[in-house]
Structure formats: structure tokens, C-alpha cells
């Protein structure tokens, strides 16, 4: 059995916007393992992004506990969470979230400059197949390219986990496949534990493990014995 990277105990999360209370998570218990490629699948509003944010130290839980290896995330203060994000986690967002005023290389540098043992920005970009676009600004790149820059930025610090929130959500099938290939390659080459949120059910087939979300709870967990290549995914 591989090392357990994340596990949670009865995580709940309640959002209050104005007078409305939204129960995003209603007691979630999961375990995620080292080197695995995990897909979180579910309808919009089922709580998958909320869980990912809590695992990534971007958000706090309302109750329950969550651990990264032996570190209890739910007990950390802001400073420790910053440290945790800086040292262990890479993020990829649906809308890339690149800094528009920085080139591809500089966007990656943004992370390598504060990381402990980063790879050179050039290497990170090479790994996502963008060695020829390093000095372009985000506005000069396609959506798929921008997302791959975001992946390069996320992996450049050699994180133990890579958390991706709908990385292909804004992309068409062709560029979406390129992004997924990049993620798989990172997972294979570097052994980075990868968690991907999607509501594209086709993507589950490339995962080691699939968590099905419904209404703020885990409805099912499926472990795939055989995985398919991204290019074979039906979009």
C-alpha cells in the first residue's frame, strides 16, 4: 500500500453569503495516496472545489479535520498554511490565473523564486512542451498554452501534490487533451500525487482513483485497474 498523502475526518464547510447559508461539504472522509492520479467528479456545487481548496490550504473547514501526511491542515495558522502551500502544493486553476504582466518564464519564476528546491523555469516549461513559448505574455498564448504555463508554474517547485481545479474546463477537446497529457506526464515522470477536479466524466478513465461527489458528500470511490491515454478520452 502506498503512503497516504491526504486524509480527512468529517470535514464540513458552510458558506454564508448574505443571508444565505450554503452547505458545501457535509462530513467528508477521504484518503488519497502517494503518486496516484485522482479525479474528483461531480456536478457543479457538489463540493469538490471546496474540498480541494481545503486540502490545498486555500480555505478553512467549518468543522472536521484534514491531514497532509502527518501535518494537520485544519490546525494550521495563516503563516503555516503559506509555508505549506509554498513547500508542498502546486495549483492549477480553471482560468489559468497567470499574471498578465509577466511572460511564461516569469510566471514560473514567480514560484521558483520562493521555493526550496525548484527546477529551472525552462525545464518546467519544457516538461509541458512550451520551450518555444517562454518569452510570450499570457495574452499572446492560446488557452491550452496558458494552462500549460500554469501547470509548469505549479510543478516547477517539485511539489508533492498537484491540485487542479477544472484544468480543462475552459478548453476545447484538442487543447484539453494536451493539458491532460502534460499532467499525466508529470505524474509519471515525477511521481507527483495529482488531484484533478472535473465534471467531464470521460477524464475519470485516465485516473488511478475516482471520487464521486454529490451534495457535499462522497457518493462513491472507484479504483481503476486499467487507465486509458488522454488522447483516447471521449470528450
Amino acid at each position, binding site marked *: 500500500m502506498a503512503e497516504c498523502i491526504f486524509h480527512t475526518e468529517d470535514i464540513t464547510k458552510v458558506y454564508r453569503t448574505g443571508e444565505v447559508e450554503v452547505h458545501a461539504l457535509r462530513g467528508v472522509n477521504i484518503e488519497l495516496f502517494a503518486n496516484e492520479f485522482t479525479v474528483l467528479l461531480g456536478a457543479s456545487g457538489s463540493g469538490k472545489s471546496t474540498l480541494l481548496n481545503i486540502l490545498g490550504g486555500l*480555505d478553512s473547514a467549518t468543522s472536521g479535520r484534514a491531514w497532509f501526511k502527518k501535518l494537520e491542515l485544519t490546525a494550521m495558522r495563516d503563516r503555516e498554511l503559506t509555508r505549506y502551500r509554498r513547500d508542498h502544493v502546486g495549483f492549477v486553476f480553471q482560468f489559468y490565473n497567470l*499574471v498578465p504582466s509577466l511572460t511564461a518564464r516569469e510566471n514560473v519564476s514567480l514560484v521558483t523564486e520562493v521555493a526550496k528546491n525548484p527546477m529551472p523555469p525552462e525545464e518546467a516549461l519544457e516538461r509541458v512542451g512550451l520551450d518555444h513559448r517562454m518569452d510570450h505574455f499570457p495574452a499572446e498564448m492560446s488557452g491550452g498554452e496558458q494552462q500549460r504555463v500554469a501547470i509548469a508554474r505549479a510543478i516547477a517547485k517539485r511539489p508533492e501534490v498537484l491540485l487542479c481545479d477544472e484544468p480543462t474546463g475552459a478548453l476545447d477537446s484538442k487543447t484539453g487533451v494536451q493539458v491532460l497529457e502534460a499532467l499525466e506526464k508529470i505524474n509519471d515522470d515525477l511521481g507527483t500525487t495529482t488531484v484533478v477536479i472535473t465534471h467531464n466524466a470521460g477524464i475519470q478513465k485516465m485516473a488511478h482513483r475516482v471520487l464521486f461527489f454529490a451534495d457535499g458528500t462522497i457518493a462513491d470511490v472507484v479504483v481503476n485497474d486499467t487507465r486509458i491515454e488522454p488522447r483516447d478520452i471521449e470528450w
Partner: protein
Amino acid sequence: MRALDKKLVRDIRRLWAQSLAIALVLACGVLAMVMMYGAERSLTGTRDTYYERTRFPDIWSNAARAPKSLVPEIAAIEGVSQVEARITENAVLDIEGLDSPAMGQIISIPASGAPEMSRLILRAGRLPEPGHDREVVIAEAFANAHGFRAGDSFGVTLNGQKREVTITGIVLSPEFIYTIGPGSIFPDDKRFGILWMPEEVLAAAFNLSGAFNSVTLSVTRGTDLEEVKDTLETLLKPYGGSGPYDREAQTSNAFLDGELEQLAVMVQVLPPIFLVITAFLVNMVLGRLIKLEREQIGLLKALGYGRWDISWHYLKLAMGIGAIGVAIGWGTGYWSSMAIARVYGEFFHFPYLVFVQYPAVYALSAVIGLGAAMVGAALAVRKVVMLSPAVAMSPPAPTRFRRGLLDRIIVFFRPGQPTMMILRAIGRWPVRSALTSLGISMSAAMIVAGLFMLDSFDELLDVAFVQVNRQDAMLEFAIPRSEAVLDDVENLPGVMRAEGAFATPARLYHGPRTRTIAIEGRRESNTLARVFDGDSRTEVPPGDGIVLERRLADHLDARVGDVIEVEFLQHDDLRRPVVVTGTVSTFFGLGAYMDQDRLSAMLGQVPQATLANVMIDPAEQDALYEAVKNTPAIAGITLMSQVRSSFDETMAESANISVVIFSFVASLITIGVVYNSARIQLSERARELASLRILGFTKGEVSYILLGELFILVAAAIPLGLWMGYGMAGAMVASFDTDLYSIPLIVTRETYIRAALVVAGASIASALLVRRRIDRMDLVSVMKTRE
């Protein structure tokens, strides 16, 4: 360079229009500070240097005729370091091409060849040779007014004897930085000039051989001026001494001080207000700008940047913008402080300028400017940095609009949806709306505070030249005459009516307070020069007491009904109690008025006149001038129309400089505020407005929603700003009170309208700039960014 720093540089470049607008607002505040302090410092420094180098005296006194043997006694007074006795007299000047006679004050040059005190600075030519009775040097201002050069000549009537003199040189004197003729209130270099001639020539002409009628003293540092003046007064009393006075009462210095003091008041009041206002605006605008960076801040946090890293990043952005503003302010401030000092320097005829800058002002303005920018940034960043990254990166939750009282009122009127949006936005962010409005009002207030002075001067002119002084001209007698002389005056060609006026130097005492002034004797029947209160616009007859100028009454702390002691300086030991029967605001001088008959009775003499106020028939003006030139008993003539026009010119030169500058800076600030507000509003609501466009709203309708809000805020700001401006004007008027003049608080409707128009114009210009951006809004890309 670190990636984050590259982002910083590129962010400033991306936001250049707005960065610059913010920087310029700040620059205006810094500019006003550096400029005004620099100019004030430079002028004060120049005056001090000038006075020191030319040995400007500390004490002056005139006498009728004092023997020169008195000089060693004066020099022996404790604390006196230098004494110079001299002769100074008035003279009528006959200058070719001048339609009215000019007056001159003529001063002796000692036999040693040049005055030791109030040293002359030779600008051209040479000083007269001792003993040459037809050589003269003249003051530069007078020379310039007539285009005189060394070698030119003109006519001088000395004690009734007319002679032609030749100009050997042109000089500057520290005693006549301001050259003001008798009865005049402002310089008129064409009709009043200062001349210097060898002492023996004047002594012969005025029968003053071996004697002097004017003395100047310097004292060592730390000497009690009052004691020296008292001793000097005692020494000169037997010789017709008119009472020693110090620098405070020396006309030229008093005017110069008044002018510098006025500048100092403006410096102390306006620039700090400007700077504080701009700091406040920069703080507000920068804060809102940074709030727009919410998502990026969330991203940086997600990437593992700590709070301090992120805060520091935005502080650097703020400092960058602040530094640009401060640098622009410093540069333009330094340059314009020199330019203003130069203009004033020319106005004062300083021989040179000593530029002095105030390092502390530079430092202070930078600290305030950068501080405001950084505090604005820090407050805004702090709020966002406190959010968890997940929250920061998602757009802020829809604002909670509630059905409050305001909303019910709005709904009651059933405006269209766009108007509803405008009104609800204002109601939803009342503090933000109020602050924006307040910022705009402040700029309106600054414009009023700059422009009102012109109104006040108009009022002052009206009181001085229409209400108080209605005479066409003043004829000054060489010595006081009995009032019978007025019949002779009325017989002069062109004189339609003549009224006498009498003035005698006196010292007023009230408790521990004392003041030396001239008391004027007036008759209630006089209509050409009245004792008139400019505030209530009524005549105040002295009755059997004395009427004091309001500021004089303040100095003496005397109220109507109080009894003050009056010591008549030209009459031995004559000291009488007099009741204060009224006060008047005349805006000029520190006058005191008594009934002519009562004053004469008190002095034990028949009513006398020191000058005659006359009405003139314009058709016979030339004949009158000719007659005055040829009448030795008349020392000079002052035309009120010329006094008034020279006053106008002077105002145009000095006060207008400041008025124009302040109005300009205030207008710039207005544009900065309005433009920044509109721009930020546009950024904050870009998505909302783009959505409306996609829903089919026209560009005009969308602009209406954005700019309508701004216009409502401007409309609310203007009346408030005008009201605040009146308050600022009041504060400035209160601090302008000097011995020489005060300023009435008058703000005309035109000024209010002008200020309102500047603000409205700035708003419209900014709106047009923003409107252009709305028109160019790329709908697709706006909607593409994440929700």
C-alpha cells in the same frame, strides 16, 4: 530582477494613465508646498541679506531742525552702534511729458561721498560729486517709470526755487523697496520718486546748514528698541522731533513685511491644506485601485507568498506612484518657487535674489505624500490579504442591496432601471460616495479660496475710493496752514471745492497697550473724505471723542466707551484722556479720527490744515498742475485716480500671481479627483456594464449609469465645496490682518459660479475620457474572465 518586481514595473506601466493621474494629484499638493515655502523663504532671505549688506537702520526719527552737535549725544545712547544724520525734504518735480506734477522725496548724501547707512546700490552711472548743486541720483523704479538714464535731466523745485538737475546715476536703496508717496497707499513710480543730492546743496536750499532734520540709527543685537527710542525722543524734542519709529513703522519695510506676511499666511494655510487634501485623495484612490487586485493577491497567496511579501509588493506600487508624484512636485515646485521669487523680487526691486530652499519642506512633503499613498495601499491590501486565497480568488459575493428607507423613496418615484442602479449604488456605498463627494468639494473650496481675494480687493477699492475718499486729489501743504488757506485753494484754477484735513502724530495709550499713529481732524460736514465704516457702510462721526480703525482698537484692546490717553507728539507734554466714540473698518492703515474743532481746541491752536482734499474740473486739470508746480506752499498733489490705478496694477502684479497659481493647482486637483473616481468606478463595474451592453443596452445608456452616479456626486459636492470655500476664505481674511491693511470677506456670486464651472468642467472632461473607454470596452474579453 525578481518576477514580482517585474510585475510591479509592468503594473505601473499598465496603469500609467491612472498612476499618472494619482501622481499628478499628489504632485499638486507637493508643488504648492515646495513652491510657496521656497518663494517665501527666498524672499525673506533676500530681504535679510539686502538689509544687512546695506546697513538698513533700526530706528528713524525726523526733526524740524536739529544741530549736528546732537549727533555724538545720539551716538552715546546705550546700544546704539551707528548714527547717521541727514536732510530729507519733499520736492515737486517737473518732468517733461508728464501731464501731472510728480512728487519727490529728496535725501542728502553726506560730504564723505556716500551714505554709511541705508547704503545705495549703484545700478548705473556714479554718485553726485560733493558740492555739485545740479547733480542727482534717482531710484531705479522712478528711473524705469520714466525711461531715465544717467545724463538725462528734469526740473526740481527745492523750497520754492526751481532748478534743472542732471541724473548722474541710478540707485537702489533698502529704505525704498516700496516707494509710497504721501497720502498714497500703493507705489506709483511715475509720480513719486526718490532722489539723492549732496548734503551741502540741500542744507543751503532748506536753510539747514550745520543741522539735520532726519536721523537713522542702528543698534547692537539685544538692545531694547523702546529705551533707545525714548531717549532719542527726549533728545530731539526741543528740535521739533516727530517721534522716533522703528522698522515696524518704516513705510517701505512695513509694506514689504505686510506683503511677505501675506505670503507667509498663504504658505501656512493653503499648501498644507492642499497637501492634506491630495494625500487624502491619493489614499482613497490608491486603496480602491488595490482592491481591484483582489484576485491577483489571492493567486500570490495560493502560490505560497506570505502576507508580508504581498503587502510589501503593493506598498512598493504605492511608493512608486507616490515617488513619481513627489518627484514631479519637487521639480515643478523648485522651479516655480524660483519663478515666483523672481517675480516678487522684481516687484520689490531687490538688487539680487538669494534663493533659499527649505530642506525640511521637501522632506515633509515627501513623507506626507508617500505616507498617504502607503497607508492607502496598506489598508486596502490588509483587507484582501486577510481573506483566504480561495475567497480572494473568487469574485466578491454580490453586494447586499437592501430595501431601506432610501430605497423605498427611490422606488416610490419609479425611475427607470438605469437610474435605479445609480441611486442604489450611491445608497449602498454611502461612505465611499460621501468621500468622493468630499474630495470634489475640497477642490471647489480651494478654487473659491483662491479666487475670492479678487472680490475682496474690489470691495476694498470701493470702500477706499468711493465711500471713504471721494476727493479727486489731495494737495499737500509744505507746512500746516490755518484753514483760511482753503479759500486760496478754491481759487486755484480747476478746483471746484476744497476741504481741509489735518493730521498730527500722536501716541495712544490704553492700559499697558500703546501705539503711535497720526490723528486726523475731520469735520462732520466734510464729504470728500469721510470717517466711514466699510463693514456696516455707514459714516461714524467722532462727536466729542475719537473714532479708531477697528484694527487699531484691537491693538489697544479699546472698545466704544473706553477712555484712552492721547499724547500729542509735536506738543510738549500734552496728554489728554479721550473717549472712544466709535470704530470703523477702513481696511487701510491704522487711522484715528477726531472732530477738527475739538482737536484744535485740545491742541490750543486755531484749526489748521495739513492738506486739502479737492474736487477738480477735469477740463482745467492742466492749469491746476501748472499752478501747483509754481506754488511753493504746496508740496505736492496726489490724484486719487492715479492712486487707484496704481493699486489696481499692483494687485494685478502681486496678488494675482498667487490667485492664478492657486486656482490652477486647484483645478488640476479637481480633474485628478474626478478622473480617478470615474476610472476606478469603471474598473470596478466593468463586468456589470459589459453585461448590460450584451443585454442590449446602448453605449449611451451604459455611460449614463456610470457617469450619472459621478454627476450626482459632483452636483452634491459643489454646494458643499462653495460653502467650505467661504469658510476657508474667512480663515484667510482673518489671518491677513496687518497694520497696513486688512481685507474684507467678500465672495461674489461670480466667484462661486466660476468655481462651480471649473469643477463641472473638470468633471465633464473626465467623463468624456472615461466615456471613450466605455465605448471601446471589449465585451467578449470582459465576459471571458472568470466569474
